[in-house]
């Protein structure tokens, strides 16, 4: 009568997550993330609701809380691990830039347009920048990138270098 200490995670599940995350997480980190997912997901629904995410105090005071919660709510565990994979220290520069790009691309059309940037800047700067300031910044940014329709992933890659994103890692606490 063995008891599954990991609460239902089989080796096959772990292998699947490892391959989907392209090796960003190792087995112990996945176990830890799974425990975390289960503790956040009250009622064993299989996904974390927006309210449960916002009950994390440190997340609720983050300027981009709303934007991120929209990507993270209602995802199952595999997607949860995949989304966070960009923050592993084994994640490539490519993955980190792509994550930032996807956050900025609010409407998800593959291009960070004028509207996307306005929404994001409003979230990032709050009431400290007026509407005119934001409009000006957006214009100047599009100008600098040289593409009036919007910024592509390439523009992000050209602007953000590897050393800029060096701090973009989180440590998953493992029992070891």
């Amino acid at each position, binding site marked *: *009568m063995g*008891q599954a200490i990991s609460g239902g995670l089989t080796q096959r599940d772990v292998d699947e997550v490892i391959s989907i995350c392209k090796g960003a997480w190792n087995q112990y980190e996945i176990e830890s*993330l799974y425990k*975390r997912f289960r503790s956040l997901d*009250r009622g064993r629904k299989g996904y974390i609701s927006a309210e449960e*995410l*916002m*009950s*994390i*105090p*440190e*997340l*609720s*005071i*983050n*300027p*981009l*809380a709303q934007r*991120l919660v929209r990507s993270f709510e209602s995802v199952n565990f595999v997607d949860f691990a995949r989304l*966070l994979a960009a*923050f592993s220290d084994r994640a490539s520069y490519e993955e980190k830039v792509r*994550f*930032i790009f996807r*956050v*900025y691309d609010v409407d998800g059309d593959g291009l960070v347009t*004028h509207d996307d*940037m306005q929404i994001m*800047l409003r979230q*990032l*700067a*709050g*009431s*400290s*920048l*007026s509407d*005119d*300031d934001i*409009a*000006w*910044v957006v*214009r*100047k*940014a*599009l*100008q*600098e990138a040289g593409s*009036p*329709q919007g*910024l592509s992933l390439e523009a*992000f890659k050209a*602007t*953000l270098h590897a050393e*800029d*994103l060096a*701090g*973009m*890692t*989180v440590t*998953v*606490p493992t029992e070891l």
Partner: protein
Amino acid sequence: MPAGHQLPDSLTTAEDGDADVDGLEIEKAYVEAEAERLQSQQKSLLAVMLNINSVLTDAAAAMVDDSFLKCFTSAAPDPWNWNFYLAPIWLLGMLFRHLVLFPLRLTLLLTSHLLFFMVFFTVKLGMPSSALKLRVEQRLIRFLCGMYVASWTGVIKFHGPKPVPEGGHVWVANHTSMIDYIILSSYTAFAVIMQLHPGWVGFLQTTVLDSLGCLWFNRTQAKDRSLVAQRMADHVADPNTTPLLIFPEGTCVNNEYCVMFKRGAFDMGATVHPVAIKYNKIFVDAFWNSKRLSFTQHLVRLMSSWAVVCDVYFLEPQSRREDESVDEFAARVQAMIAKQAKLRVVPWDGYLKYYNLGEKHPGLIEKRRKVFADQLKTFLPAGGAVGSSKQEAAPAAAAAAAAAAAGKKGSKKAN
């Protein structure tokens, strides 16, 4: 959290001191951390705007682990049914617990409740108010609590001198479950400040415990708090009342951590008696996660386990020193209790379980946003976006927007 920075204590005070939240500590921890990170040599506007990695990393770190929710998780119990002979023994034990012990205990509890109510209400309605009546009621409540402890076959060891009623003294303890009160009351009667619960618990609270001078409140109502504070002070000052027990954490914590102590109990100028309660999780975890279980379910769980094992330590009474502030006093007493009960102290306010920090303190988010905005502002021409829109060779798509903005600003200026 910005990496390597602790959320300052003033932030997590649940009091109406909004002045505290705006204090210098917040500036330091949050804002300067951001400013340090964004401080860099000549960077283009695009680089500053797009590099939001610190905000994202903090969010991701919070999602992966945070020190607040840790205080309310129960460790999975260690199973011991590891092999072919331990497993059947465990199974027999389980059947015995659920089919023999539990019904016996439930019968005991219900019978003693019946007995208690008969005598208690006779006394309550029959006897005139007097010191004797209070003593009789206390004795009866002690009996009932003792029966509760018996219904879990509780093994409770009390260490330290037994409390005696005295004016100007108050007792504080760490909080794991409502049974904390029952365990302490089985030893010596206490009055308590508690959240009013619905159902049969609320009935017991209002009809029975009221006689001891217990104070009920609704933790989400701010007005309640000041009323309670006054009644608390009155109760403590009177030497003829039952000793007052306060749980300064304000919420049930999992007996591994100790969340922030609220200052109410320490602000009254009374001598504080710290009481440390440590549960031995060997048979059952006594932490009551009120979000997952109702109190009845919690009691059923306790009653169908082998025993509740607990150590209660009555520590040396403390008074506030002259050079100590109320918060420092509370922290000192908290450290004493945490050390005895082997708990880790965390600076979070227990009430964060019930409200969203970002909603209650939007100023915090705005302060962090301001740092980002200031970085961008260094690129704005002097005087804001106003003057520039005329001179800029704006791309065709944005020309209309620029003209509109200029026009709007121009008319504003003219006024």
